[in-house]
Each structure stands twice: as C-alpha cells, then as structure tokens.
C-alpha cells in the first residue's frame, strides 16, 4: 500500500502531467488544423470553386464584396516549391559543413565563437533580412546578371538560405556532438582518420538529429513570408528560370490578408492557401522522414 503511494509520487504524478501536456500539443495542432480546414474549405463549399481550378489554374483574381472571381493558385504553389527547394539546396550543405566544424574539427572555436554568432541570426527579424535583400542583394543580382531588376527566385532562395542556415546548423551540430565518445574512440582505434570517423560514425549517429534540423529549416523556408515577399517580385506568372520573378503562397497571404474582410471570396481563398501550405509542408516532412528511414534500414 505504502509503496503504491510512493510510486504515485515518484512515477504516476509526473507521468500524468507530461501526458497531459503532450496531449495538449496534439489538441492544439488539431485545433489549428481544424480552424484552417474550416476557413479554407469555404472557397470550395461556400463559393463553389472546384479543387482543380484552385490547384491547376493560374488565373488569380478573387472578388472582394459578394461577386465571383477566379482563385487559380498554380503560380504561388510552384513558386513556393521552387524557392523552398532552392533555399534548402543552398543552406543544407553549408549548414552541415559548419556543424561538422563545430562538433569535430574545431570544437573550442565552435563553442565559444561560432555558436553564439550563429544564434544571433535566428533573432534578427525577417523584415531586416528582407530590407537587406531589397537594398543590397536585389541590386547586386541585377548588376551581376545584367537584368533590369534583381527580383527573382535566386534572390529569394539566397535570402531564405541565410535565414534557415542557423536553425539547421544549431540542431545538426547538437546531433553530431551527441555521438557517444566510445563510438568515436572505437573508430579511431580501428585506424580511421578524422573524416572517416565523421563520415562513418558521427554522421550516421546524428542522422536523425540532422534530419530534424533540415525539416525545421524547410518548415521555416515554407512559412517565411515578410522577407521573401520583398525580394521575390510578386509577379503573377511562372518563373522562366532562377532569374525571373514569381510569387509564393506566403507572400500572397501576407500581402492581402489585412486588406480583405472575413467571408469574402478573396479572404477565403487566402485561407485555402494557408491550409494548402500546411499540407505542402506535411508532404515535405513525410518525404524527408521516409528517406531517412530508408537509409536507416539499408
């Protein structure tokens, strides 16, 4: 009897508390999902647009007060995918390189200097990155490639890459540092060079953590709005290459959400885009996890 009471204090109480909080996160997620689904569904249920015209048309001209317009969002969807993929392609290799330097090549410098410097960059507001992009990067891109203007997929990808770099690097470095020393020493004892140890032991051991970093980075790339909006050009047309302007889901949401009223076709179409964005990130995340698991099995 007494031992049960003891166990209540030492185990069940704590377990209940964390379970409640754990479940509350799920509830919160579901609440937001339901909220977005409900708001986003109105485009199709209330305003009667077909899913195909929303996904595959590029005619975007929703109406504001009671009339009927078009809600084709193909340009934004393609634009978001392009920009997020480009940002990830640029940032991930660099992040991984810096993470390896922090964890194994120069741990002292990494701890004392690299980390604090990198963390500062999480705290710089998007709008500052956006303005740096608009006033420094965009003119630079225009000059280098002899374009009339530098608003482009490339500019957006670069700005986003700088923005997601700290997230990926911090999380990946943590994962690499968590490699058990015995494993590292065992690898060295077998005659591995440092790089062989990193490649065969640390990178494998830290794979889950690195993937988490990449997922978090990708998530931020998909959801980032203010900075991208300033450098992408927001032109309602498909990009003809890295150097041409286009538009993204987040940019169109931020630019018009405040200017439209609840229940109008325009506003509901923006909520549909928000819900779609959530689904896109969901697909990305599942794919990356799947790749990670495949590797693990082999």
């Amino acid at each position, binding site marked *: 009897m007494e031992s049960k009471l003891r166990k209540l204090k030492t185990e069940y109480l704590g377990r209940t508390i964390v379970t409640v909080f754990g479940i509350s996160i799920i509830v919160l997620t579901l609440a937001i999902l339901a909220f977005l689904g409900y708001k986003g569904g109105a485009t199709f249920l209330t305003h009667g647009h077909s899913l195909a015209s929303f996904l595959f048309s590029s005619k975007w001209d929703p109406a504001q007060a009671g009339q009927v317009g078009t809600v084709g969002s193909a340009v934004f969807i393609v634009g978001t995918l392009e920009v997020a993929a480009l940002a990830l392609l640029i940032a991930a290799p660099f992040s991984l390189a810096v993470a390896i330097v922090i964890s194994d090549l120069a741990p002292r410098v990494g701890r004392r200097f690299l980390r604090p*410097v990198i963390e500062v960059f999480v705290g710089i*507001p998007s709008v500052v990155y956006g303005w740096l992009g608009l006033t420094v990067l965009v003119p630079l891109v225009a000059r280098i490639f002899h374009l009339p203007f530098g608003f482009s997929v490339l500019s957006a990808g670069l700005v986003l890459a700088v923005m997601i770099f700290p997230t990926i690097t911090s999380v990946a470095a943590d994962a690499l540092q*968590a490699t058990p020393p015995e494993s590292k020493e065992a690898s060295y004892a077998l005659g591995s060079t440092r790089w062989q140890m990193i490649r065969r032991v640390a990178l494998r051991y830290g794979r889950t953590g690195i993937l988490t970093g990449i997922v978090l980075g990708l998530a*931020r790339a998909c959801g980032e709005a203010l900075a991208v909006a300033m450098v992408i050009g927001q032109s309602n047309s498909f990009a003809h290459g890295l150097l041409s302007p286009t538009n993204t889901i987040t940019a169109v949401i931020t630019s018009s959400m405040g200017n439209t009223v609840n229940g109008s076709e325009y506003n509901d179409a923006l909520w549909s885009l928000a819900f779609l964005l959530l689904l896109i990130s969901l697909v990305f995340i599942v794919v990356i996890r799947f790749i990670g698991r495949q590797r693990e099995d082999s």
Partner: protein
Amino acid sequence: MTLLLLRAAHSATRQSSKSGSSNAGMAHIRRAKLADKTITVILSTIAALFVVLLALITVYLLYKGARAATPDLLSFTGFGVGIQLFNTVYLVFLSLLVTVPIGICAGIFLAEYAGKGPIIAVVRTCIETLSSLPSIIVGLFGFLVLIQLTHSKWNLLAGALALAILNVPLIARTTEDALRSVDRSYYDGSIGLGATRWQTTVRILLRASVPRIITGIILAAGRGFGEAAVLIYTAGMNSAVNFNNWDPTSITSPLNILRPADTLAVHIWALKTEGIMANANQIADLSAAVLVVLVLVFSLSARWLGNRFDKKMSGGK
C-alpha cells in the same frame, strides 16, 4: 560533461594521427589521409566563409545603427527605443515562462511515454507541420482565440501566448531529441538502482540533456525576439508607457501584462512599412542594432548558464 566528451574525442584524434603515420605505406591509407586533409580544409573554408558573411551582416547592421544613434533615440521616453527594448525582453520572458515547461513536458512525453507505434510518428509530424505555419496564420489564430473570444484588446499576455504556439513545438522537439540521444546505459543504471522511469527521466536524462535543451530555448527566444507578424495581431503595434509608474494595476505601467506593447521587431516592421517621419529609417536601423546586441547578450548568457550547470553536473556532487 559535453566538454569532457569533446576533450576525449580531441585527444583521440591526436593519438590516431600519430599512430596512423607509423603505418603509412599502403596506398589506401595515404588516400584516406589525403581525403581527411582535403575535407578538413574544405569544411573549414566553408565555415570561415559563412562566418565572414554573417559577421559582415552583423557589422553592417551595427554600423548603420550606431550612425543613427542619438541619446534621444536611445532613451526610455518619446521616440526612444527604450520602451520597445523593455517590451521585447518582458514579452519574451513571459512567453518562455509558458513555453519552456510545456515544451519540456511534451518532449518528455514524446521521448519516454508515447511508445513506439505509428501514433508517435503522427504526433511528431503534426508538431513539425505546426512549426512550419506562417507566422501570420498563428497571429490570426491567436487574434481570434486570445483577443476576439476573450473580448480583450491587444495585450502582452496574448502576444506571449501566441508566441508560445509557435515555440512549444520547437522546444518539444529539441527536448525529445536530446532525451533520446542520452546514452542508454544511464537509463539502465538508474532503473537498475530502483528508480522509477519518471525519476530516471527527470533526475538523470533531463539533466544530461540540458545543453541541447538550452539550444532549443535560445532558438525559441531568438524567434520571439525577431517575430513580428504574430505579435502585430496579438500584442499590438504601439504602447503608451510611463516609466515612473510602477503600479502594475495601471494601464500605463510597464509591468502591466494586459497593456498593448510593441517589441523591437514590430517597431522595425511598422517603421519600415508605414513610418513617414523624417527619421523613420534611422530609428529602424537603430532598433535593429539594439536587437542584434540584445540577442547576442541573451545567447551568450544562456550558454554560460548552461555551461555552469553542465560543469556542476559533471563535476559530481
């Protein structure tokens, strides 16, 4: 503790390079060593390049801020950014007060009690998706739930809670990762000594995870410092504060958590998008510089605290 591990790894590296040279001769060893050197050089160069880029951005921001700085703008009155600085620190502090316990608890749940079935994969995916939401959506959701449903006006508390929606997933994820990466022998040892799962988790695993959890907290705080879209809809875009009034019941007291408050990031956003005063850009530049310094100080002191804690733990008591 981490420091010890690193030292061990470091000395192991040195030993291996010494012993390696005596075995030289076989071609593949030479190749491996060449690869090792090349990779080291390449990676270090990349790291150096990025650090230079980041340093350039920091210096640029600080330089522009310093050029704009006047005693008037740095003050806690009128056009000074002191009010926003105070609001930023206060709001992020309030938000962390909510985020950290919930995030860590949720992380413990995920790592220790959620089991291994498909449910946890779904939950984890849910959390990651949640953290990919554009801030404006979280802001509007927060506005609907925290402002409209409660019939209140923009306030610090609502801002802090909305920020928590954004950051709880981040802390939950980093906590879970940290707990999972603690060496299993710690767990087995503790259970073997008769501790319950909960006791083991809190007293052994959680303590060993502190440095990584702190990274999560720093990232979360960083996002709080830099976030604008969430707070515009929940905490408001301006504040009327009297710094001689420390009675927390008054609407103009800095301590009141139900007053509207604009943080540095919101201030910058407002100035850069709609400020039409002559010196709007200067104030924005100065705010950005102040924000960079604030984040730097926070990040350094959080890490210092973490290290102290870490040393105390690994030093044994």
